[in-house]
Structures are given as C-alpha cells and as structure tokens.
C-alpha cells in the first residue's frame, strides 16, 4: 500500500457502465467518510476498447492516482492486459465467469506478487437476485464494497440517488448490490479493509471535477453566456452549464465551430457581459486569430484551453500538457495576454473568476489552461474557496484607447447612457481611428505592452508547498504537480513550487531556490519540457533536471517516487 492508499480499479469496454460504477464508488466512499480521487481512462470510441475507473482511497485529501492498484475488477476478461501488471503485492483480480487465459509472463507476475484471482459470475448472481443481466455491475459494486469492508448504507443511498430519475427497477438494483455484498466468495484473504478513521464531515464535502470547478467559477463570476463547440476534454463544461441552465439563466450556445464560438464570446464581452468559451488544442488553434484580434482591440476574452495528448488528433481522450508554449505564443503579432494554469477544482473555481477580472481590468485575452486529468477526474473538496469580488475596471471617458502610464485605457459598456465606443483590430489612435503613422503605432504598441508589466506586478508569486528547506524542489503547473503534492507530507525533503500564473512569468523564486542550493526539477506532462522552455526564455535559467511524461497518462505518485529513488 504505497502512500497509505487503497486503490480499486474497474476495467472493461467503453459503454459498459464503467463510468457509472466509478462515479458511484467514488461518491459512496466519500460519503462513508473517506477521501478519494477517481481517475478515468477511456478510448476514443463509443463502445468497446478498454476503459477504466480507478479510485484511490486515503485518510487525507489526495489529488492524484497511484499507478498500482489493490483491487482490479475486470468487466470483461479482454481488459486484463493493460492493467494486469500494475497490481500491488497481495492484490486482488476479479474477473467474469469465463476462464482468464494468462501469458507466462502474467502468471509469473501473479505468482511473484502473490495476487489473488477470483472468478465472479456477476450475471448469474444478478439473475439469481431477481435482477436482469445489465445489473451485473451492481453485483460487482456490492462485492467490491464488501472487500473494502464498508457499511452498505452509503453505497445504497448513492445508488438510489444515481438511478432516481432513470427508468430502472430500483429495488432489483439494490438486491443485486446486496447480492454482491453478501456473496460468500468474499473470503478473508481477498479483503482490503479501509482502516482509516472515517471523517463524518466528508458527507457534506463535494465530489467535483476540474471542469465543474471551472463552470462553477464562471457562474459565480457572473459569466452570462457560454459558447463552445464539442471537444474532449473541454466538453463537460458545456454539459454542466447546459444542465444547470434553468437555475443559472446562463445563455448556453453550442456554437457551429470554434471560430464562431470565440467570435461570439468576444462580441459579448465587448458588449459588457461576461462570456466564455472552452476547447482543446485543435480548436484553440482555430481561435488563435481571434486572440490576436482581442489583443490589439483590447477586448476582454476568456478562453479555456483543456489540453489533451498529442498534436493533430493525437490521443484525444488522454491527458497531456503540450500546449503551454502554444498558449503563450498563439496568435500573430505581438500583444499582451495572460496564461493561467489550474490544477484542481478549487483552483479552477478561483482562477476562473480571476481570469474574468484580469481579462476585464487589463482588457486582454486570458487563457485558462487545464488538462484532461484535471478536467475529468473526481476530486473531493471540503469547500470551495470564497467567491472573488467582481472587478471590471469600467470607466467612461472620451478616448477608448487613451495612452496611460499603466497601459490601461478607459473601457465602458456600449449603451444609450454612454458615449459611442469604437474598438478596432487596426492599429489605432487614442480616439480609435485607424492609423499607420509611425509615432501612433509606437505609442499604442508601447501602451498595450505596458499592461503586461502592470499585470505582472499585480500577480502573486508562485505557491511554494512543502518544507521550507527541502533539498529537492519540483517546479510545475497543472496536473503534473498533483502527484508531487500528494507525497509532500511523507517526504519532508521535497518541496513543490506550483505555478498558477504562467504568463507574464515571475521566475525569481526559482532562481532563489536554486541559489539556496535546492535541486530544482521541472515536472511536466509533455515531451519537450515546454514550461521549462518558457522559464528559460524569460529568465535564461535552465532547470537542471527534468521529469517528463508524455504517454497520455497523468503523473502517478509512483512516477515521482521512482524519480526520487533513482
């Protein structure tokens, strides 16, 4: 049990209910008083392939997964391959009624690790319990619950809630859960009891994904229009906002493509409401011309860039952080921007609100970076941070592009009460008229770029987490550092310098730590160390060690531990 966790994983073909299983377990465990983190893998196809949901259970808040599991529950035997060699000593594998054919290598592994294999005919158990074939998953659920030695009440409640408005035979579902729970095959040696002290307050805490954090942040911040085109892993923001739209009144428009989405968002923002769009890398490329337009026109814009693995279509349902330099450089010409990176739902909630304030005060595009691992994993959160006060920097004046010392010009809401407002993507004079005069161009370019300095001054330093005089300090952002955060408590010689604001970049802290003698290690979910390149470009400092991962998987705690042990 690495890092004192118990880890359960369901694996099976897409479309076979893995998703529901994972969500139910995660929520039930939380409601039973235990922190957990639920991580989902799935292929880019609708049914079949290999999908999984892994729930890491701990006695404190965690924000990452382990690579290795204690219990692997296979919905179909075909799914074994991918995960069979990531099971811990004494682990348990549950599979279906058909024989599990194993390679020699697998057999060896099983022996070496002393794994316990159990064939569980969940379909038969479901039918015996008065359920139907498709309730087999419920049997599995009950069985796993038993292995964890938890009381069935929390589970039953969550199951009831999950199927509440669905067309199901609720009592049969529950019977199946109980049939699994009471199944005599749950022998002693298979048990992985959760021995942590339950925390009753957890019942009231949240099961929340990063994308829900962003959506909630937008709602809190008074975002009143959301425009987006479907693209994994950004799409679930649309889902949340769409499903809550009656409550919030937000206008949710599925735009016809990404260019349309971002143009609509820019139009709405200029008009004085708050609007947002979200996409992944490919869609972001298409939006990049508009970023540049917002940059020179000084129209506020908030774009969520939910990263996934790979160029082109890549590995579309997997995670990665290969768009850091894209976020900083996309869009032609030179204009100020702000790039913010979230790493968990609390961050997401808070930083989305910040993004709106920054976009409006500084009148520039803000790119909010997230990644699939943050976007779709389920985190437990005791409470979201307090809402942030809306700051818009509105001011009526004569000239929309007044040259000012801090670079910030007056901006107001077009309305019959206010003077006429012209914004323009042409280079312009203070009074908005297009210009190609040399002095005008220089003055306006300088003015715009001064905003970056003003903004930089207002931004906080990166967050240092861990022991003050740690020997090894990881530097990172996004989900990459989450596994680091999770081991800090047990490794007092480790620190984590967590970046939320990537651009404009405050790099002094890194140099300071380096000069103080710490081993500095960049941790990134990409191939080339993009954030390290940005740091080098800004500071000239090359981070001496790099821990990079770019296989579509997030950082597991073992990745960090392996690095430390080598």
């Amino acid at each position, binding site marked *: 049990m690495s890092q004192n966790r118990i880890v359960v994983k369901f694996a099976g073909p897409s479309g076979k209910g893995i998703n529901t299983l994972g969500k139910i377990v995660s929520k039930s465990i939380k409601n039973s008083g235990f922190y957990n983190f639920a991580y989902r893998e799935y292929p880019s196809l609708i049914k079949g392939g290999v999908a999984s949901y892994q729930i890491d259970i701990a006695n404190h808040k965690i924000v990452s997964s382990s690579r290795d599991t204690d219990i692997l529950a296979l919905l179909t035997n075909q799914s074994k391959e991918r995960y069979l060699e990531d099971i811990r000593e004494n682990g348990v594998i549950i599979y279906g009624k058909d024989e599990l054919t194993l390679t020699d290598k697998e057999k060896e592994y099983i022996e070496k690790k002393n794994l316990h294999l159990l064939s569980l005919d969940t379909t038969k158990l479901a039918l015996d319990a008065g359920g139907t074939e498709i309730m087999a998953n419920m049997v599995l659920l009950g069985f796993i619950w038993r292995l964890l030695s938890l009381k069935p009440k929390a589970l039953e409640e969550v199951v009831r809630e999950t199927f509440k408005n669905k067309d199901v035979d609720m009592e049969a579902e529950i019977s199946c859960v109980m049939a699994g729970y009471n199944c005599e095959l749950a022998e002693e040696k298979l048990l992985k009891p959760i021995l942590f002290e339950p925390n009753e307050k957890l019942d009231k805490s949240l099961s929340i994904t990063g994308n829900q954090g962003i959506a909630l942040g937008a709602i*809190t911040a008074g975002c009143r229009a959301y425009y987006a085109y479907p693209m994994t892993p950004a799409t679930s923001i649309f889902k949340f906002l769409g499903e809550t739209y009656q409550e919030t009144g937000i206008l949710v428009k599925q735009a016809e*493509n990404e260019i349309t989405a971002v143009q*609509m968002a820019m139009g709405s923002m*200029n008009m004085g409401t708050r609007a947002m769009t979200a996409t992944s890398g490919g869609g972001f490329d298409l939006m990049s011309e508009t970023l540049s337009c917002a940059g020179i026109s000084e129209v506020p814009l908030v774009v969520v860039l939910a990263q996934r693995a790979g160029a082109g279509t890549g590995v579309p349902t997997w995670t990665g952080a290969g768009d850091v330099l894209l976020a900083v450089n996309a869009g032609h010409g030179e204009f100020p921007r702000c790039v913010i990176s979230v790493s968990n739902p609390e961050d997401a909630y808070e930083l989305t609100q910040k993004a709106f304030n920054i976009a409006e005060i500084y009148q520039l595009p803000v790119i909010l970076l997230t990644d699939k691992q943050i976007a779709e994993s389920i985190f437990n959160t005791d409470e979201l941070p307090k809402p942030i006060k809306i700051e818009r920097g509105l001011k009526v004046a004569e000239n929309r592009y007044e040259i000012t010392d801090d670079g910030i010009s007056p901006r107001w809401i077009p309305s019959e009460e206010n003077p006429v407002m012209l914004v323009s993507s042409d280079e312009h004079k203070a009074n908005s008229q297009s210009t190609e005069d040399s002095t005008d161009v220089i003055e306006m370019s300088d003015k715009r770029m001064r905003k970056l300095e003003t903004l930089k001054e207002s931004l906080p330093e990166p967050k240092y987490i861990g022991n003050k005089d740690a020997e090894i300090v990881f530097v990172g952002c996004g989900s990459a550092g989450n596994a680091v955060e999770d081991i800090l408590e047990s490794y007092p010689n480790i620190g984590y310098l967590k970046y939320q604001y990537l651009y404009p970049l405050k790099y002094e802290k890194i140099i300071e730590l380096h000069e103080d003698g710490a081993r500095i290690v960049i941790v990134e979910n990409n191939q080339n160390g993009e954030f390290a390149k940005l740091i080098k470009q800004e500071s000239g400092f090359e981070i001496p060690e790099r821990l990079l991962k770019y296989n579509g998987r997030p950082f597991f705690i073992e990745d960090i531990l392996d690095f430390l042990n080598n």
Partner: protein
Amino acid sequence: MPIPIIEYNRNLPPTWCMGCGNYAIHASLKKALSDLDIKPNGTLIAFDIGCNGNGADKINVNAFKGLHGRSIPLAIGSHLANRDMTVLADIGDGGTLHEGLDHLIQAIRGNYDITILIHNNENFALTTGQATATTDEEKGMYGLPQGRPEREINIAQLALGQNPSFFARAYSGDPLQMIEIFKSGITHKGCSVIEILQSCPTYNKEANPQWFAQRIEKLEEPIESIEEAKRISSTTEKIKTGIIYRDNSIPTFYEQVGNRKGVETQLVDEVKNYDISKLLSHLE
C-alpha cells in the same frame, strides 16, 4: 423629430475611391438609423475587413472592426449580450462567400435578430481586385488572367435556400430604396440579410450605372412564396431589387432558448456574483 444625421458622422473623411458605392451605403445607413430614431450609441456595427470595413471609423456609432470574414458571429455575440442594441454586421462579398461562408448560413438558420449588410462589389477589393464567387466567371482578375474555374455563387439563391426570415437586395446607386430596405431590415425581428449591389468603379468597371440601369427591376412587394422568390432572383437579365422575401413567423434564436423565456433583463445587466450553493448540493 428624428435624430439629425450629423450625429452619426465622425469627423474623419471616408477613404473610398471616387464613385465607390460605399459612400451611398453609409449615407443611407445613417439616414435609416436617423429615421428610425435609433441613437448612435443604441447601435453597434460589427465591421469586416475589406473596403467595406474601412468605413468603421467614419460613422459615429458603437463599432467593432474585427477580422476578415468574421463580422457575422461577432455581431451575433454582441446582439445576444444586449438585445436592446440594434446590431448590424457589415461585410463584403469576399468575407461572406469565402472566408466566412459558414457564418452566413448559420446566422440565417439561427435567425438571430441582427441585420447583415453584404457589400457585393463582385471582387476582393481591398486586396486589389481578386475574383470572388460573384465575379464574372470569364473576367480576368488579379492572378487569374483567364478568370476563375469555379462556378459563381448567387447570394440571393444561397440566402433564400436557407429559409431566411428576411432577404432583400439593394443597389448602392438607389439610396432612396436602400434607406427603406435598411429600415425594414433593421426593424424586422430576426436575421435580415441584405445584399447590396455595390459599385466599385476601380475593380468592377463593367458594372457601371448604365449597366445597372439596364438590368435592375424594382419589386414593389416582397414575394409571397419562397420558391417564387428564388426563381425571380436567379434570372440574370433582370436583377430584382427590394425586399424579396420576408417571413415573420419564424421565431428568433433567443425566443427558442429554453431558459431565457420570460427573462426581462439583458445578459449585460446580469453580471454580478451568483450564489452557487444550490448547485453545489448536486455535487455533495
């Protein structure tokens, strides 16, 4: 008393060529707004990039000079934020039929309550005269000495094919009719698409006033049947101008948005901190 036209003027002279149809289009637009009593700050025009867009800083209304081909979604986003504002998109044939062709179709399909003015001068003028889908097929143009190989796009056919709630055709040489068309388009509830046959004496010399005079036929009344409207607008000997088709029964986008029914405020009035505690209960 209508708002004096002068209030729509900025003191910056237009930069179009002599004889350019854009002069009359701007003048007519100002007159239409004035007649309708729509204040300069009660209007927002999303301007495209092109000779047409060079008018952005010559008219005193709220304006956003954005990107080439994108003024339609920009106008839609502006409109949705504040439906009290009169919102127009001002765009060329190049921007409409090439860079941003999809936007016109989606705008009609969504029936957003905006007015789209398409300056059809039958070429990409600002980039010095390349062929667009409305240029005569055989006409030698910049880089295409023997004309373009693709067939033309007839704007009326394209627009009418999408079941618009309003389609009209104006001619820059007939400001009086143009003013009336603009007024009808602006007051129409829904997406008003107005094609303006715009003279461009520099790159489209053939289509001079005589040429138009010989061909234009004014419609007195919109055509009742859309099929008939398509038919009459496809003949090339006679070019119909006027309000060609109108259907007031098509709901606007906003009217179809489930959660905004009965909401009186505009999105722009609703920016404040919202309490999310109720939503959080779903996540507990």
